[in-house]
């Protein structure tokens, strides 16, 4: 028994050491300004990455939506009224190029963040409900999961961009984008649970397109050097 205890304690010690190593690596701060040997990303670079990310996200949502249409064939012109109510419709978003260009940078950034935050839970829920559809193959299920992850990643990316913009003095500190995400949620956040999956997809397809366009507008306004 004492031998056993010794070996166990040894293993535990080793594990602790390793874990502490790993966590220390993970907790190491990513470059603060111009640390030696550290590659600091420019704002333009950050924007490019974020825009690429959003483009991919919208592409996936587009694919999933057309697949849903194929399977469930909802009549495009059913119920003549435009009664579609996305849960994000309470968020005021510019619905044209001029409106988006007229909006202040901070506001636009906030709108983007609000949108992304609002979709975190519904997409996660959607991914789980995909399992109920026997017609869907695993590929679509993977897409749903990917979409859900991407929203999360994109939000973090946009937050970093906002941070950097604030650091560079491009945006003022009036809007503190580092406030808790829950504060950004629309008031009627529980509504999304009542939405059908198809409507959810439709709404998300639209919102992801919005995010992509807004990011591009922002980028070409702030750092217009490359690819505008």
């Amino acid at each position, binding site marked *: 028994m004492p031998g056993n205890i010794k070996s166990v304690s040894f293993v535990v010690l080793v594990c602790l050491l390793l874990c502490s190593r790993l966590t220390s690596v993970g907790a190491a701060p990513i470059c603060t300004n111009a640390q030696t040997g550290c590659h600091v990303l420019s704002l333009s670079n950050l924007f490019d990455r974020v825009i690429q990310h959003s*483009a991919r996200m*919208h*592409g996936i949502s*587009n694919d999933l939506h057309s697949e849903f249409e194929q399977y469930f064939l909802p009549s*495009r*012109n059913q119920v*003549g*009224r*435009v009664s*579609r109510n996305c849960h994000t*419709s309470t968020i005021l*978003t510019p*619905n*044209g*190029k*001029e409106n988006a*260009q007229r909006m202040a940078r901070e506001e636009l950034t906030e709108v983007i963040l609000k949108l992304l935050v609002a979709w975190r839970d519904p997409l996660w829920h959607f991914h789980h409900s995909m399992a109920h559809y026997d017609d869907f193959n695993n590929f679509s299920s993977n897409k749903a999961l990917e979409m859900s992850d991407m929203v999360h990643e994109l939000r973090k990316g946009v937050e970093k961009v906002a941070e950097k913009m604030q650091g560079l003095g491009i945006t003022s500190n009036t809007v503190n984008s580092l406030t808790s995400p829950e504060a950004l949620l629309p008031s009627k956040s529980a509504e999304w649970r009542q939405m059908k999956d198809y409507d959810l997809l439709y709404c998300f397809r*639209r919102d992801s*397109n*919005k995010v*992509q*366009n807004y990011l*591009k*507008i922002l*980028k*070409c*306004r702030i750092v*217009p050097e490359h*690819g*505008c």
Partner: protein
Amino acid sequence: MDYLIYHKLMMSRLFFSAHGGTICPTMRRGIRVALFLLLSAAVESNSMSPPGKPVLLGCRSPEKETFTCWWEPGSDGGLPTTYHLYYERERLEGTYECPDYRSAGRNSCFFDKNHTSIWVDYCLTVMATNALGNATSDPFKMDVMEIVKPDAPENLTLLMEKSEYSPYLHARWEPPSNTDTKSGWVTIKYELRVQQENGIKWKEYTSGTQTHFSLHNVSPGVLYTVQVRCKLDHGSWSEWSNNTYVKIPNYLPNEVPLWILVSILSAIPFITTVCILVAKRKSVKLCVLPPVPGPKIRGVDAQLLKSGGPEDIDNALIVNQRFPPMVAWKDQTEEYLIVTENDGGLPTNSQKRKKSLIIPTAFHLDLEIHCKESTPSQNDWEKSEEINNELDTPIKPFTNSSYVDIQRHVENIQAVDVKQVDYSTVKEVNGENVLIFKKDNVPLRSSGYMDVQEQEHIQKDYSRVKKVESDNLVVLQKQIVSLDTHCREKGYHFTDCPLQNPIKPHVCTELIDSGYVDTTPAPPSM
């Protein structure tokens, strides 16, 4: 309505046919036309109806800022009909009418920037109205995001560019003029396609967001057709641009004359070499294919053979006319036998020695043994015998006349091809290595050996010394050896070796004893 007209026409036709061909053709045609007009007028005035249902064909936004919708009118019911488009919009209360019926042509509605909202649903309907009534199309729902389809790219220009390796086609174009690329609102992607003249298949290339493209896969003298199209973000592809043609000029690349020059320059030394080889072909032949020495018979004068008469032939073939008498050999044999008995140590030698006698004199003559004893004498023999007795080695100088006991090494001798060979080939003179002696000087009968005339020369056909086992013993190979060399090595002249130094003879003798083999073996009969 149409059926009525048709019915009337059929009736009129029947009416005419019933009357047969009594009316001439032109007149008949004219009557027919008049009838038709009357009928149609009658029909028109008889039935008018409310308009048919129009159909909304679709909408399109070329730049994601404005959009246009088209419809297909139904039948107008015989009355002037007007069309109105009404729409409802998400998040906008009320029904509105199309702001612009003209800009986009007939049966269309154009929504300008002020009236366009992206990411909102529109619900459109078209109503056809005439004096008798109206008809409404089915509602058409759309979001501007979904109907984006740009115009084709403009000003496609093709240029031939010359690079170091091969010419290529450089295509350049511009984005459609109504799209806004500066503000980042839309990202345009392009696609190119190329077709050869008289070809059927198009080859497509993706250009990404570049407004130019290089085609390297072009053949000279061929006419190419190039088209380009574009897409905004995730929207639909535009139509292909108009055909643009380019003919690749025939060209002679710069490398061709260079290669000609290089090939000529490299050919010159080659030709030179060939000429030299041809000129000196004899020496080349000599070098590459050295002449193989033909078979040579020692002592045979080939020239004499060729040119001479019968006597000459005889002379040529037989160098030494004087054959040693067989009797002498026999005597030798007897004497020899006696000797071997005294020795006692060599029981088998008798036979062997006999055999040795078979060996032609020439064989003996070749041996340097003769150097040892110039005159055969019993004394010598005895001496040799004495010496022989003193020796421990089995090899003994057995010959009083210094003939060779070849049997010492039976194997060697037996291996020798005992053919009848002209033993008199010894006469051959060949430099220092040739043992020259004349037949005259070989008193075989007396001693069974031949005198060595010019002993400094050794037959070059001697056996090779294999090894020197001891002072007394030299082992020879069956092959040709220059016995001379051995003797030379010992440092004494060939001629001197036999008499002056009692030991030396042993050496030479042993040399011989140990199986020196002449390449001209004795005939077995002898």
